[in-house]
């Protein structure tokens, strides 16, 4: 009996491996295209081995107007948005996690409700509103909206991480005369360092990849982040140079992939508990 069970397990494993590899092959084709085309001097739309390896595509796109300015704009928008999100979320999570109040539950339910609202739907009214209050085509307006759209999930995640920090350490600091803000900054946040890192990286990755928000709220080409400027490869420059498009895609995607890898294990656990993640 144990023998048949274990041999059945072994054949199960082979079948599972084979099934997964088939799916992986389908998933890897588009990814293989971008990597191979970026190195191919004669790239087109299909996956093929390059006609010789070259870095010319990277050379061609590594100019201020194609790569550096848009990436810098992305960094400014997403960095600013992330800082604002994390600071506001950390402050907001503190009373929610530390003090018992009858307002906590309704507040958290509202936050959780807002977490799953389709933000895409409100971009047209946001545009109309931004025109009215003169925030259209401003970097700060876009940063504010980015922060607000990411804030519900950041508060939710931050509160869950903060709940994991024992209260006794803070109470010791209070008896020594520290204020609540001091104990938050000096004791609670350092203790939940990995949690803060997860919220930071997650917010940043979400904003970095977002296309619709800057596409709607920014108009001046010089202010466009990479998410929008990548469109230029299709629009105004005549024929599409696929090798350069692929090279730019890689340059633009690498930061978020690296950041994700950095926090991957924490994120996996974190959002299984948090329940809500926006894609």
């Amino acid at each position: 009996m144990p023998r048949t069970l274990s041999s059945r397990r072994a054949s199960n494993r082979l079948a599972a491996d084979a099934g997964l590899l088939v799916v992986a092959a389908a998933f890897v084709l588009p990814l293989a295209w971008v990597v191979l085309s970026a190195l191919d001097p004669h790239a087109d739309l299909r996956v093929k081995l390059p006609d010789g390896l070259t870095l010319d595509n990277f050379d061609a796109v590594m100019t201020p107007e194609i790569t550096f300015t848009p990436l810098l704009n992305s960094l400014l928008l997403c960095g600013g948005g992330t800082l604002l999100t994390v600071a506001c979320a950390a402050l907001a999570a503190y009373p929610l996690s530390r003090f018992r109040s009858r307002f906590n539950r309704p507040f958290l339910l509202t936050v959780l409700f807002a977490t799953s609202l389709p933000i895409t739907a409100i971009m047209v009214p946001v545009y109309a509103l931004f025109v009215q209050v003169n925030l259209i085509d401003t970097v700060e307006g876009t940063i504010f909206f980015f922060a607000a759209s990411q804030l519900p999930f950041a508060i939710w995640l931050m509160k869950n991480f903060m709940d994991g920090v024992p209260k006794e350490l803070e109470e010791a600091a209070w008896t020594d005369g520290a204020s609540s803000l001091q104990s938050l900054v000096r004791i609670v946040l350092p203790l939940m360092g990995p949690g803060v890192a997860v919220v930071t990286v997650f917010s940043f990755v979400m904003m970095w990849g977002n296309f619709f928000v800057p596409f709607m709220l920014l108009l001046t080409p010089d202010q466009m982040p990479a998410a929008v400027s990548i469109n230029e490869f299709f629009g105004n420059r005549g024929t599409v140079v696929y090798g350069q498009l692929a090279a730019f895609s890689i340059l633009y995607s690498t930061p978020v992939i690296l950041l994700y890898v950095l926090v991957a294990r924490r994120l996996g656990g974190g959002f299984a508990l948090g329940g809500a993640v926006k894609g």
Partner: protein
Amino acid sequence: MKTATDPGLAKGPGPAAVPPRPAARSRRVPLLRVLPLTPAVVLLLLFLAGPIAYCAYIAFTDLQLTGQAEDSFVGFENFTSAFGDDAFLNAVWLTLVFTVLSALVGQNTLGLALAALMRRASKPVRTLVGGIVITAWVLPEVVAGFLLYAFFRREGTLNAVLDWLHLPTQNWLFTLPILAVSFANVWRGTAFSMLVYSAALNEIPQEVTEAAEVDGAGGWRRMWHITLPMIRRSIGTNLMLITLQTLSVFGLIWVMTRGGPGGRSQTLPLFMYEEAFQKSMIGYGTAVALLLLVVGSLFSVVYLRLLRTEV
């Protein structure tokens, strides 16, 4: 363990009888609770609740982008004209097809299948497959759009593979654009369901499945009678979340087809954008946005009910 300063912080002006205390102190305590919340609340009110309220207002006006001094209140006219508009009904239908095909069927089923297979697979295969599927998820939306645009184009990879297998090829983005963008959404979004279900399957105690295995229940029967009932809460949560994500997909479809050809992949977000900006009908576009928001809110409420024991 309570310290001297703590009781004032831990008890609020709640329903329980609060012993009288010095006025200065009781005023300080609520302030301490409210003050840290203000930056977040102000930001949320101004930039999230504000636009939603504004949305609810301009959906009932005839606001346009150009050539109009004053917008006027038109009541439900935007909504009635939407439901008489073939392009709108087409967008509703395509949104439904896109959501059912890519989220409910595609991402959900494939994510569950991958998670279940990964439990039995060998470690290197598991790591490799997980890495590839998650990379597709982490990529910026526009990049994912380009990769799949290249994949589905007439001269792209899919047709090359079909050709190699001696199967008929087609111009996918022209003949079946909604199918192509649905597959694109499956490619991009499956990792989420995979991660949710991997976590859920890990929660199932091993003894339960082992007992069933010894009793001779095959893989499918174990899945249907034991695993699925045990993870039904995760299934509900996952379905809610991926539906909401799929309802708001814009960039992916925009990059691949711009909603075309002839509106045949124009889901509601793209329809909303076209009405509001290419046709300058902000009021009408916003009415569509409001409908999308209401549908999203309904899903969101169901999601809250599924989670209610956890808050």
